[in-house]
């Protein structure tokens, strides 16, 4: 049902480049912009800032997570399953921030044709879910193994002996092959990533809709509670940390875990005793795979793994040890969660008439079948694969550093993936010819300028949406994956003017007042103080340790199944998700009230 649209969004063509940021476009491919050639159609479309995946300006290399990801989403949604009303998602970049828009299918004949394809193909997936998902896990594990085994050839004075004696290919081919393989593995990961995603969220959303139609006042979080898994893979890493914390106390090495100590200081304290060394051995066993958690949501090279940056797991260990010593219970109340999950399901089913009850029970069962994928794909794809993959790309960076092309290995992420290919090409050419490469003079200034641009663009506040305000949102992917519903978009449009109240999804009940802490990047997690309210773009499971410090959470993007919502419900603290603009409207230090039952955030001072 269409409702009158109030308010508007700015035209993407009106937004100005911040002072000193001229030329930011050079970081991105030619098709990434609101260009004059496509103005007529682009200006009439609705675009929203994908702050869920891209909360900060995009480094040139990391843009692969836009291109390849939307290629894969489009392939599965549009070309494999042929979701009837929606093709794929287009993206554009404004001042380093990524805006996306769905391509609807409107021709009724085409929709009917696609419906036939969808029913056949999606039906096959739902009917064989467990088997196909089992294969998916093996595929992902195989992909990760292949990535870990991939060697980046080094360029020595001479080609290695096997080139001369065993017909091995030369370094030129081997190095470029290795780089192409690295890119191909990322392409495959993204293809796998989207294979189940839409169908998984689709089953869940259909269940949620049935609940809303028959039980219109049911709080959203009850739907999530009924579906969410009990033995969630994403909670495993923290469960292992809790076990290690208990072990530290049981074996008397808990004194090493002092607030303020660095991971290295804790390790060296542990290394002084037999029991401490035994504990460290136990830790080693846990690291694979559980320390492949990312320190953020995974789509930037800056989100490294716990292996790369152990500060988060060590902070968590210190917290768990401290809590245990204070006599607190640090276990997830899993028995309670399990009982409550069944009780809710049974009681709600009993309230429905028999026809609705049948749909309710079947959809709940289907949602529970698909949900492990929805929760676990993040660990395999976004965390384990991507954090390892960024490190593989860093090895290419090291090679370019060794030959003077780059100032440091992370500088590789300031080049686009095609520019890296080009730099490797020139390196190989001049290494072979013995000539003077241009790269060492050419790339470092570009890297420096782009780093400066990213820092400056980080201060720009992107509007939540640009272009036309749509009457209705029909795209299943945008609704399911981003929670961008008609209601949400219209709230954004109304709220353009700003004001002391933000609305979002009521994700975890309760009302709390407190001081806001706005966290825009993972590096700022350490600034969060006891008792503050976390205001962020989106959280990831790797942020678990700070949830024991905060009193409520507010996010820009996300629905009731988002990580922040799940964790807040477990901790019993209020959460409002999907506000669209909390990080741009709220400032650190402001006093705010979070009403997790009504879905509102009020700025009090």
């Amino acid at each position: 049902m269409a409702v009158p649209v109030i308010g508007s969004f700015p035209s993407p063509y009106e937004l100005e480049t911040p002072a000193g940021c001229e030329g930011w476009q050079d970081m991105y491919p030619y098709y990434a912009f609101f260009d004059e050639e496509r103005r007529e159609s682009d200006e009439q479309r609705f675009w929203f800032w994908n702050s869920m995946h891209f909360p900060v300006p995009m480094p040139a290399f990391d843009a692969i997570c836009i291109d390849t990801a939307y290629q894969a989403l489009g392939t599965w949604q549009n070309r494999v399953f042929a979701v009837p009303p929606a093709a794929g998602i287009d993206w554009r970049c404004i001042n380093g921030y990524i805006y996306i828009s769905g391509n609807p299918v409107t021709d009724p004949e085409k929709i009917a044709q696609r419906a036939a394809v969808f029913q056949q193909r999606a039906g096959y997936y739902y009917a064989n879910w467990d088997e196909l998902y089992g294969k998916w896990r093996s595929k992902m594990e195989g992909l990760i193994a292949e990535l870990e085994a991939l060697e980046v050839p080094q360029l020595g004075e001479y080609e290695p002996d096997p080139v001369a004696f065993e017909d091995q290919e030369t370094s030129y081919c081997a190095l470029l092959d290795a780089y192409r393989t690295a890119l191909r593995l990322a392409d495959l990961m993204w293809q796998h990533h989207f294979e189940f995603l839409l169908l998984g969220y689709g089953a869940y959303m259909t269940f949620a809709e049935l609940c809303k139609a028959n039980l219109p006042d049911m709080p959203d979080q009850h739907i999530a509670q009924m579906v969410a898994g009990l033995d969630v893979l994403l909670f495993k890493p923290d469960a292992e940390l809790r076990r290690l914390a208990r072990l530290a106390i049981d074996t008397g090495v808990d004194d090493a875990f002092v607030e303020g100590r660095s991971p290295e200081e804790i390790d060296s304290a542990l290394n002084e005793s037999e029991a401490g060394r035994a504990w460290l051995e136990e830790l080693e066993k846990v690291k694979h795979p559980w320390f492949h958690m990312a320190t953020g949501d995974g789509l930037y090279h800056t989100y490294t793994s716990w292996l790369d940056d152990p500060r988060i797991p060590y902070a968590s260990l210190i917290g768990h040890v401290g809590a245990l010593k204070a006599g607190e219970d640090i276990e997830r109340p899993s028995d309670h969660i399990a009982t409550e999950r069944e009780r809710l399901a049974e009681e709600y089913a009993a309230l429905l008439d028999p026809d609705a009850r049948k749909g309710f029970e079947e959809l709940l069962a289907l949602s529970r079948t698909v949900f492990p994928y929805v929760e676990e794909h993040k660990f395999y794809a976004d965390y384990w694969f991507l954090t390892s993959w960024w490190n593989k790309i860093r090895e290419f960076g090291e090679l370019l550093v060794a030959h003077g092309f780059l100032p440091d290995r992370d500088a590789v992420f300031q080049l686009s993936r095609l520019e890296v290919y080009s730099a490797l090409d020139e390196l190989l050419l001049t290494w072979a010819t013995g000539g003077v490469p241009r790269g060492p003079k050419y790339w470092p200034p570009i890297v420096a300028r782009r780093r400066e641009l990213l820092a400056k663009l980080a201060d720009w506040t992107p509007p939540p949406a640009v272009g036309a305000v749509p009457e209705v949102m029909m795209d299943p992917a945008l609704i399911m994956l981003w929670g961008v519903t008609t209601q949400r978009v219209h709230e954004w449009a109304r709220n353009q003017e700003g004001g002391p109240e933000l609305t979002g999804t009521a994700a975890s009940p309760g009302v709390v007042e407190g001081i806001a802490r706005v966290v825009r990047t993972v590096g700022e997690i350490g600034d969060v103080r006891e008792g503050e309210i976390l205001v962020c773009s989106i959280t990831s499971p790797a942020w678990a340790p700070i949830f024991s410090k905060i009193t409520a959470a507010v996010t820009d993007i996300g629905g009731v199944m988002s990580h922040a919502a799940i964790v807040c419900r477990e901790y019993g603290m209020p959460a409002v998700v999907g506000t669209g603009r909390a990080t741009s409207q709220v400032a650190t230090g402001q006093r705010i009230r979070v009403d997790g039952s009504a879905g509102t955030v009020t700025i009090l001072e």
Partner: protein
Amino acid sequence: MSHTRRLAELRHADGGAFGGKSATLGELIAAGIPVPPGFAVSISAFRAFVEEAGLAGMIGAELARTSPDDVDSVGAASQAISQAMRFAPVPDTVRDEVARRYAELAGEAGGAEPPVAVRSSALGEDGQDATFAGQQETYLWVRGAEHVCDAVRDCWVSLFSAPAITYRARLGGTVEPAMGVAVQLMVDAAISGVMFTCNPVSGDPSMVAVNASWGLGLAVVGGEVTPDDYLVSKVTREVVREHVHPKEIEYVPDPGGRGAVRVEVPEERRSAPCLDAAMLESLVDVGRRVESYFGSPQDVEWAVARGLELPESLFVVQARPVTALARHAATPASSAIDLVMSAFGARPKTD
């Protein structure tokens, strides 16, 4: 005793003899719901009254002259009948029975002349098809056997109020004008209100909607205050919605000891919420029990007695099926896969 019975002895099947409300109160007591004790006066008592006073012919003639569209004719008939009934004596057999029942009740309450509520219990009242709600009178804080008898007669008279005559005429004249009466010990209500064991607006069966205000229930039932408004989940007891309104007036017992008076609510209590989480939880528990006993969503009037602690302080004074419930579009029985297909815009063919 042929004209009266203890409420606790009544069941649904007694509705024809004692009226719907009394029968429902009997069922509630049987279900273990806290209902103030009392007794019912049967419809036969009303008939004996009409017969002994020789009013049948006069009533029939007056009603025959009315037309539901002619307000003046209804008003004239109502006045004539009411006048005649007020001057007619209550038959001695009825009077004696009421006095004995009242004495029994006084014994239970432990006082000589306990205050009671005298409520009409019309034939067909509280039925699922037609709600007579508000058409008949209730007399609160009545003391002494004589006054109880007078209030019983006042209930009978109310059967011929102008709105009641019009209402029956609209239903097509098939309902015999006859009435029972329920007499119950008065609850000295600090807070009272109404709850629906569903959300009457959205039709959500997982919610209990509660309206509450200070004092006796008259203020809420009569729409004289904007009550505090709560929506509570039956499943988790969470308060899903809560609107506290300023409550300007309340009904309290008349300081003279008889009847109820309307007074202003003291400033400090006006905007204070009437109910806390514990009270809401007790209400939801009782609401669910009433609903499951009767097997359909219920509209329940309740009161919280002054000077008692939960759960003893909570009383149900009336329950009836929710009529005119908002029904959302029913979900057709579909398989999960068909429903998911629909969500993706791939609707299964339904021709």
